[in-house]
């Protein structure tokens, strides 16, 4: 198998060497590029742009939650007729939370994170000249771009964008009579997501094929960096679960437009009985969460992979328990597809199913715990280089632990009864998948920025400021949120002061919003750093972090084909940091605490079985 793959890779060389003599125009280089490095930058910048929209929306509704009686001119500016007189309209509040969720989960953390780094790192770290199909890769990006355009366009629809929550449960999402956003806004939402799914599938298939077929000579599966393992497994989960969301979306489109009754039954709304009979909203919930739950692992696994890589590199130590890390990625991926029901304990499904899903859900805590312990052990007795990527990786482990632990409460069907759909859930998933995945994204951007922008590096001091504002602010936002959840406050309430019972939560909400504004302001530091470093950043050495993986052996200047000469051959696993020679007098390579993967085994070192 491996020999065959190598032949194939070599074939490819000749072909591509020939390829990059073609003259490139502006359009083929920057717009319809088939080069994975350019596509990854396109993904990142589109993702960041969507992220700005998503975070700005969260600020608007945080203002509303903290100061419901106050009039803000900013509503008038951004919300137009829904913010007249500085008062936010309740329906636009729901639209904001809906689109915030959709954008952050799909457009930022799926496409922006996995799309960016899978594209950048898969070919570079496995030693390939490009993706298996550069063309499909390009199509995948442009479909993503198109779906982003549709999503943004839906914000300008007369009756308002989709506002049934990012989970778009019917009948609310199916009936424009139920909420204004379920008209044209929801149609655009569904169109956008359908295109997004196509994009994500094309991307995922490409990643899988590339990892299986285009590994360079010597790059066995057990020598893959954990980043590649996580991108590979993420792509598999995507292929398994995204089509299910497409089927749910198609059935919803049919219920909305063609009078079918997949999800609708016995409805009396706006003074009349609908003809629909026999459908079930619970079916939609099953279909949605069959994607929706694996989706959170699609978001978090790439972050985990990158964090493992960045932690090992900057600790100057091998990642602890490589095989356990791979096994836990596989275990998480498998379990992620059989736990979706924990979103539905009180949906009306049979309580016995609830028991089964509690069992599988709590099982997933085991590989997660193993990963956390292994990360902590990776730090132990290291020589930690506090680069910004490293700081964000440590931040990731911290929020993954604090957010993950509350999952033990939510995953327990009995305990879920009373915290389901309260702010406790909001706090939990924001920490464990939102903030953690964003930290993974930042870790990746700081670490691989030189690879993306031809050796230019992000300013480290601005990076430190960004990191410390973000970690303090994020805990300031989401720690207190657990309390208002345990006080019984339901989520997606336009205001909590309409009846007196939750009046005493107002100052908690103020604290949360103040921290949210503070944290969001901190992201401006990052944006400034990102844009200015892109053009004026200092150029670092070819291998700035003294890393072992193959991407740092590739040309600093971007060329199509990545390596000017032949593709490097791999002789060892990717974590030979601080490995000593046989008599333990010095490192394997004297004076250098790392051995890159393309260096052959030395006479003075022990071969180890990792």
């Amino acid at each position, binding site marked *: 198998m491996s020999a065959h793959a190598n032949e194939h890779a070599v074939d490819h060389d000749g072909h591509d060497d020939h390829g990059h003599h073609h003259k490139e125009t502006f359009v083929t280089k920057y717009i319809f590029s088939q080069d994975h490095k350019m596509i990854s930058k396109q993904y990142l910048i589109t993702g960041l742009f969507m992220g700005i929209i998503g975070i700005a929306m969260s600020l608007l509704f945080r203002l509303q939650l903290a100061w419901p009686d106050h009039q803000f001119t900013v509503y008038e500016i951004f919300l137009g007729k829904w913010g007249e007189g500085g008062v936010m309209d309740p329906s636009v509040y729901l639209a904001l939370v809906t689109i915030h969720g959709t954008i952050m989960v799909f457009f930022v953390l799926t496409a922006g994170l996995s799309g960016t780094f899978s594209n950048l790192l898969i070919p570079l770290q496995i030693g390939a000249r490009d993706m298996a199909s550069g063309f499909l890769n390009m199509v995948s990006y442009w479909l993503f771009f198109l779906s982003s355009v549709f999503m943004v366009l839906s914000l300008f629809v007369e009756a308002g964008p989709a506002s049934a929550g990012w989970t778009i449960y019917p009948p609310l999402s199916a009936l424009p009579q139920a909420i204004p956003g379920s008209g044209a806004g929801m149609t655009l939402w569904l169109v956008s997501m359908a295109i997004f799914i196509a994009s994500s599938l094309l991307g995922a298939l490409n990643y899988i094929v590339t990892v299986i077929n285009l590994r360079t000579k010597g790059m066995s599966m057990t020598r893959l960096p954990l980043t590649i393992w996580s991108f590979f497994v993420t792509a598999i989960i995507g292929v398994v679960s995204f089509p299910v969301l497409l089927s749910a979306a198609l059935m919803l489109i049919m219920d909305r437009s063609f009078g079918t009754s997949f999800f609708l039954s016995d409805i009396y709304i706006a003074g009349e009985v609908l003809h629909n009979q026999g459908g*079930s909203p619970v079916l939609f919930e099953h279909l949605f969460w069959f994607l929706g739950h694996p989706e959170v692992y699609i978001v978090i696994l790439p972050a985990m992979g990158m964090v493992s890589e960045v932690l090992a590199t900057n600790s100057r130590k*091998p990642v602890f328990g490589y095989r356990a890390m791979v096994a836990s990625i596989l275990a998480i991926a498998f379990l992620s597809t059989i736990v979706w029901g924990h979103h539905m304990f009180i949906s*009306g499904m049979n309580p016995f199913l609830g028991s089964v899903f*509690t069992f599988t859900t709590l099982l997933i805590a085991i590989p997660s715990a193993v990963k956390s312990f292994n990360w902590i052990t990776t730090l132990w007795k290291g020589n*930690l280089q506090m680069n910004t990527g490293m700081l964000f990786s440590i931040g990731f482990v*911290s929020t993954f632990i*604090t957010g993950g*632990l509350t999952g033990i409460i939510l995953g327990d069907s009995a305990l879920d009864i009373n915290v389901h759909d309260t702010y406790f859930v909001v706090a939990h998933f924001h920490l464990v998948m939102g903030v953690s995945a964003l930290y993974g994204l930042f870790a990746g951007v700081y670490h691989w920025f030189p690879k993306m922008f031809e050796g230019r590096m992000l300013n480290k001091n601005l990076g*430190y400021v960004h990191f410390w504002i973000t970690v303090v602010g994020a805990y300031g936002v989401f720690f*207190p949120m657990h309390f208002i959840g345990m006080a019984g406050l339901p989520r997606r309430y336009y205001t909590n002061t309409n009846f007196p019972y939750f009046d005493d939560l107002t100052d908690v909400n103020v604290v949360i919003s103040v921290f949210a504004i503070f944290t969001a302001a901190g992201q401006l530091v990052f944006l400034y750093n990102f844009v200015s470093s892109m053009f004026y950043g200092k150029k670092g050495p070819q291998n700035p972090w003294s890393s072992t993986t193959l991407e740092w052996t590739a040309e600093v200047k971007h060329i199509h084909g990545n390596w000017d000469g032949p593709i490097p051959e791999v002789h060892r696993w990717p974590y030979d940091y601080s490995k000593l020679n046989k008599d333990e007098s010095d490192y394997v390579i004297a004076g250098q605490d790392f051995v890159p993967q393309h260096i052959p085994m030395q006479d003075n070192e022990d071969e180890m079985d990792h």
Partner: protein
Amino acid sequence: MTAFLVVLVIILFGVAVWQLDKIFQMSKSEGSNDSEIASDKDNNINGYLMLGFVFFTYFLLIYCFWKWGDVLLPEAASEHGQGLDDLMYISMALIFFVGFVTLWLLSYFAFKYRGKKENRALFFADNDTLEFVWTIIPVIVLAGLIIYGLFTWTDIMNVDTEDDPMVVELYAYQFDWRARYSGADNTLGEANVRLIEGVNQLGVDASDPNAQDDVVVNELHLPLGRKVLFKMRSQDVLHSAYMPHFRAQMNCVPGMITQFAFTPSITTEDMRLNEDVVDKVNEINRLRREKSLGLAAKGEEGLEPYQFDYLLLCNKICGTNHYNMQMKIVVESQEDYDAWMETQPTFAEVIKK
């Protein structure tokens, strides 16, 4: 409070800008620190900050408990709720313990092993014993939690009809609740949204003999100590019947009937005397008095003092007025309940009018 926080945020932002500027200056003046790669000095500073960070996390947690411990829900007002709260305390104790230890190790290692030029990291790639230990410990602990949780869950969800629970329908629609008592026969009449007409707001089948003694109300009264089996229906979209004080919740799904049962164990009157509730109500009333002063200054009417009542809240996004869809629940003695029920007209009486 708000003003204070606004000032705080301005100060924090000011500090951030000032620090930024300082860092800019530093990076300009020091020729040697020209690289964007962390130097030993960066490692040192960030190592100490990491240690500070774990104390910040602990502080935040303790502060939240101290400051906002009183906003949490009071003791459970239902029989199964006590068991749920016990499970919650055990789980919370566990996650606090694990959280405290792991966060400490994470930050302490980040501090202790902060990089120095002359230091050498330990090549420590794996250790089967260690990994076995920290796989098997979560397995055992979680197995315990799973078993405990599943017993609790099954007890709550499997309604034993031999207890002869009182059957009550909860009916949700945009944006309000109705409750339908099954009357003397303890059997609800058939109902479907297709039968909604005029005063028959719930679509009850008027020809069903079981429906005649049904009683439809918009305030839920429950007798103390009697098991109630709620049958939930929805008229239009998904809603969720959330009764936080009873640790009870179930979605209302159009096209199907869902159910949840519990036994109320504390009357509204007694709950109002509960220490936590008294504190909470006093705090809410203090805020309302402050607000009333503001309103009075504007010449508007002040707010009435608040009195505690159990609530049924909608907890599934259901439309524009989702935030304002609740029903009062009154738990009272059997006598009071019977007296109240006497005053309510039956379905047959309502239809005749």
